[in-house]
Structures are given as C-alpha cells and as structure tokens.
C-alpha cells in the first residue's frame, strides 16, 4: 500500500514539476507575446523600426496637427542632443524634414542609439518615417557632431481626436556593449 502511495506521489510531483517548468517558460514567452500584443494594438508608442515606403498621400490642408519633438539622453551619457525645432504645425499627408543635432562630448569613439517613442501611444502607427537616424546605431568619432534629418509624414487616416503628437528620442550610449561584441 505504501508503494502505491509512493507511485501516486511520484506521478503527481511529475505533473507539478511540469507545471513549474511550463510557467518558467511562460515567463519568457511573455516577452515575445508582449511585443506581438503591442505591435497589434500599438499600445506602447513604439514606431516602426524600419523606414516606411514613400507613399504619396492626399494632403489634408484643412487639418492642422502640432507635432512636438523631445530629445533626451539616457542617464549621464556624454552626448549633446537637441532638435532643430521644438514643434511644428503640420498637415496630415504632407512630408516634412526636421534636423537633429548630436555631438560626442568625449575623446573616444562612441556608438550610440536613439530610441523613439510616440505619445499618445495609439497615434504611433500613423507617424511614418521614411528616414530616421534611429533606424540604426550611430558611430561617432571623438568630438564628432552630426546633423541628422528625420523625414516623416502623418497618415491622413489619423483619427480626428488627435490634435498633438509628441515624438521623443532618447540617446543611449551603447559603446560598452558594442565593444564586447
């Protein structure tokens, strides 16, 4: 009888250990699930990581939208980073270009990456960028400065409730991580 119990216990423990391992995997599965979920719903204000194709939209001259530009550097990264303009009044469907200025303040070569974020998050999918310095890592020679254009358009499909869109860039100093690679 106690052998019987031993077997019953072993069987149950196997099942429970299986659940434990499954849930450990589930924790990791949340990472791609989160990305897919945000991608479908556009919840977290991420813009496309690749250049949009140059589509010709009908320009909606009756509608004006304010687009604001916010620049920041992560932590104490030694980068000077600012936009040429703080904000623009634009028409949906028309292409615009804005320059951003970045400078490596150190005596060393630097690899840095700008990460964009759009507020409100649900407007992100209507902001299309055909050109952006954020699509790839940027390398800076010591004290090198760069003028980097962003070319974008707001899809005229943008729901009417959005009057102001904020595009924020944060520069991350990735030098250490790239050196290791």
């Amino acid at each position: 009888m106690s052998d019987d119990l031993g077997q019953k216990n072993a069987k149950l423990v196997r099942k429970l250990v299986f659940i434990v391992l499954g849930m450990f995997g589930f924790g990791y599965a949340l990472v791609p699930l989160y990305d897919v979920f945000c991608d479908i719903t556009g919840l977290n204000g991420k813009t496309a990581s690749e250049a949009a194709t140059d589509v010709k939209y009908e320009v909606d001259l009756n509608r004006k939208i304010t687009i604001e530009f916010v620049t920041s550097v992560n932590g104490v990264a030694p980068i000077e980073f600012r936009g040429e303009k703080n904000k623009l009044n634009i028409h949906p469907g028309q292409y615009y270009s804005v320059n951003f200025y970045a400078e490596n303040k150190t005596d060393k070569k630097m690899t840095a990456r700008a990460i964009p974020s759009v507020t409100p998050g649900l407007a992100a999918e209507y902001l299309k960028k055909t050109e952006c310095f954020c699509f790839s890592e940027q390398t800076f020679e010591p004290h090198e400065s760069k003028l980097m254009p962003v070319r974008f358009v707001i899809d005229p499909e943008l729901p009417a409730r959005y009057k102001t869109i904020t595009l924020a860039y944060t520069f991350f100093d990735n030098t250490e991580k790239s050196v290791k690679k």
Partner: protein
Amino acid sequence: MSAVTAEHDHHDHGPAKGLLRWVVTTNHKDIGTLYLVFSLAMFFVGGTMALIIRSELFEPGMQFVNPQFFNSMTTMHALVMVFGAVMPAFVGLANWMIPMMIGAPDMALPRMNNMSFWMLVAGILLLASTFFMEGGAPAAGWTMYPPLVLQTGNALPFAIFSVHLLGISSIMGAINIIATIFNMRAPAMSLMKMPLFVWTWLITAFLLVAIMPVFAGAVTMLLTDRFFDTSFFDAAGGGDPVLYQHIFWFFGHPEVYVMILPTFGVASQIIPVFARKPLFGYSSMVFATAAIAFLSFIVWAHHMFTVGMPMAGELYFMYATMLIAIPTGVKIFNWTATMWKGAMTFEAPMLFSIAFVVLFTMGGFTGLMMALAPLDFQYHDTYFIVAHFHYTLVPASVFMIMAAGYFWLPKWTGNMYDEKLAKLHFWLSAISVNILFFPQHFLGLAGMPRRIPDYAVQFADWNMISSIGAFIYGPSQLIFVYIVYKTIKGGTGEKVTDEVWEGAKEHSLEWTLPSPAPYHTFSTPPKEVPTLSTSRS
C-alpha cells in the same frame, strides 16, 4: 550526555536526541516548528528594519542613516517580511496542521520538506550577506524595477540567486502540500469536508506553483541583462522596461494573495470555535477562495496604472480589480454571519480574529479606492498605498499568524498560554497598529511619496505619530515571544484537554488528538471526520 540508543519499538519512536534532530528531521511537526521559529526570528529582523525606517522618518531632515541605506532598509524590510516571515510562517502552520487536519501521518514528501526549509535558510542568509558587499544591499525596492535595479552594486547577482533559492523553496513546499492534500487524506475526508485552512492552503499552493517560476524568470532576465548583454528590459537594445513590470506583477499580484489566503483559512478555523457555531457558508467560502485566486491572475496591471496604458486597458484592469471585492465581501459576510447570535467568548485568538475582520475590511476599502484608475494617479507610489497594503498584511496576515499561535499552542505543547498577557499583547498591538498605519493614509492623500528618507515639513506631524505607533507596536511583539517561551516551558500549569477549546472537536480533526500532539499522529487514519458544510444534500 547519556547515550540513549535503545529503540525497541521502531514504529513508535520519538524524536532523535540532540541538536542534529533539527537538521535532519523529516517529521512534519519538527519542520513546522522550524519554519515557525525561523519566521518569528525573521519577523523581528524585518521589524528592526522597519523601526530604522520609522526612526529616520520621525522628523523631517536626515537623522540617523544615509539615503542609500534607507533605501536598502525599505527594500530589505519588504523582502525579509514577505519571503522570510509571512510566507514561511504559513508554511510552518501548514506543516503542523494539514496532516493533523486531514488525518494523515505526515507530509507526503518528508525529505523534500526538510530540504525546502534549509533552502529557505540558505536563501535568507545569501540575502543578508548583501549588506556586507560593495554598493550595499539592494535598494531599488522589493519590486526590483529596471533600469534602477541594474545600478545595484555587487549585491545584484546575490539578491537574484537568493530569490531563486527562496522561490525553489516555496515551490517545493507548495508541491509537498498539494501532494499531501491529494494523496494523504483519510478515506472519510472528502474534499468538501476539508477544514478551510486546508482548502485555502491547497489553492495557495497552486498559486505558488504557477507564479514563483515566472518571478524566477523575470529576475533571471535582469541577471542576463546586467551580465550577459541581453536586452529584455533595456530600451537601447530594443527591450522595454515596462515589460518587466508586467511580468513582475503577473507574479506579484497572486503573490500578495499567497500571503492573505492562508490568513483567511486561519480566521475560518478560529471564528467558528469561539462563536460556538459551524462556519457560515462553508462551500461559498471554498468557492470565494478559488474565485479570488483566479481573479488574482487577471488584474496585475492595476499596479501600473500610471505607466501610460491606453484607456481601454485602464478600464479593464479597473473593473476586473473591483470584481475581487465580491468574493472577498462574501468571506467577510460569512465570518460576520458565523459570529451572529453565536455564544461568543473573547480569548486571544478570537480577539485577533475580530480585529482582523474589521481592519482587513478597511484595507480592502482602500484597495477599492486605488482600483479606480483615475484616483490611482493621485495615490500611486504615495504613503496611501503603504497604508493600504500594511493594513492588509499586518492586522491581517501577521495578526492571524499570531492568533494561530495562540489557538494551536495548547495543542502543540499541551500547556495553556497566559491569557492575561495575551490579551495585553492583543490590545497593545491592535491600538498601536492603528496609530502606526492610519496616519499614513493622510500622508499619502497629502502627497508624501513612499521610499523617501526625508520629507517636506508639512508631513511632520503625522509621521511623528506614525513613528510613535511603530515604537509601541514593535516592542509589544516581544510579549508574544515571552508568552510562547513560557507556554513551551509549562505555561500556566493548567493542563489542557484534548479538545482545548470547548466544542472544537466538531470543527476539525486535530482536536481529537491528545494534547500535546504526539510525535506521530494518525498512523492509522481516523474513521470519522467532522462535517463542515451545513447545507443539506
């Protein structure tokens, strides 16, 4: 030492002699005692940290500690109290009581039981060792949000491994409890005859099995982000720090129920005994517990209303959270109805239970306030949330652990505790806990952020009152230690009956055993078990 080696009757031997008994024991009662003693010690370690926090906050300005150490105190206080005190205390109670309540001779997996206890000790020691490391103990809050937590000094990997050990220990404990309840019940003990403490623990154990691995995964991702160049939560590499919060709270919300469900179980054991009535609505209690456990998995983002979720998300998590009030309300109603027209007496366990019902309800109401997304923007990360969860943890979980101590000590030791001292302990605790935490509601509403060592002078008065409460509450708990010690050493001298409390036999099996409970109990399963469900079939 005399050499006592003779063991003629192998089936009926007592505990081994000497200190090694406690290291190698596989007896559920010994391991239960180990867990309880360890958690009591950790309660005072975590409590000392809380008193350091309250000393610093007694007045505005910096008094005693530097801000880094202050932040370590808030972080470590939480980790020690959650993983070192409250959870192990309930595991200890489970070890002691579950086999005696379901008519089993021991836990299903006694050796694993021993291992999970010593792993807990190892985990806590590892965590404590971080105090002596460069950069100090973890100070980014017990939630360990990146990117802040990645700035922790040398302590980070040790804290993470400690979380791994504590997690494995809890998972093993949970597996053991599930196996015991499923496979070791006396034949007459059907699931719907199990005492509620057993039921709540069964559900808690399933929560643990489901969530601890997710937490282990989250901290492992932190580890690889810091040391192996992954970018799970690093925006520069395409990750997202908000993702951590989602994973953490997927674990974190059920985790807070891990600490409250066994509390409900203890209350459901104590209240009927002292009301001298069967528990009102036994089966609704079981289903309410299961409903709370289920809901706990789908409400996690109410901890992160301010991260910038869209309206639809806020609304969903708001309504789902408010739904929890329904099964919780059922429980409060049932406890109240159990007391209704009961022949109540007010011994210490009952006093603590009544205080629990009242004060936990208050904690529940502030929870409802914060469930409202638009209001939460005001309360988020203020002392209001601190007041809320301390109301649900201290006068709920901690009170009921102490109540369980008073309730079952006579069964464990065969001696009666000192009722006068216990009442003193109760009144000091119940009054000071309110002096301690109630003013924190006002501080939070006025805008005082949590986890800060210094504050604007407008918060000075309530902080001082709160600190005074802390310095009454903390030392009062030493009375409990003294009572426990005295009871073990013989108590009041009054010998207790098997039943201990009048009519207790009708509520649960442990009261049919002799007092003190022999080292081995229910070697043969009991023939009859009490019927708890009052509904007629």
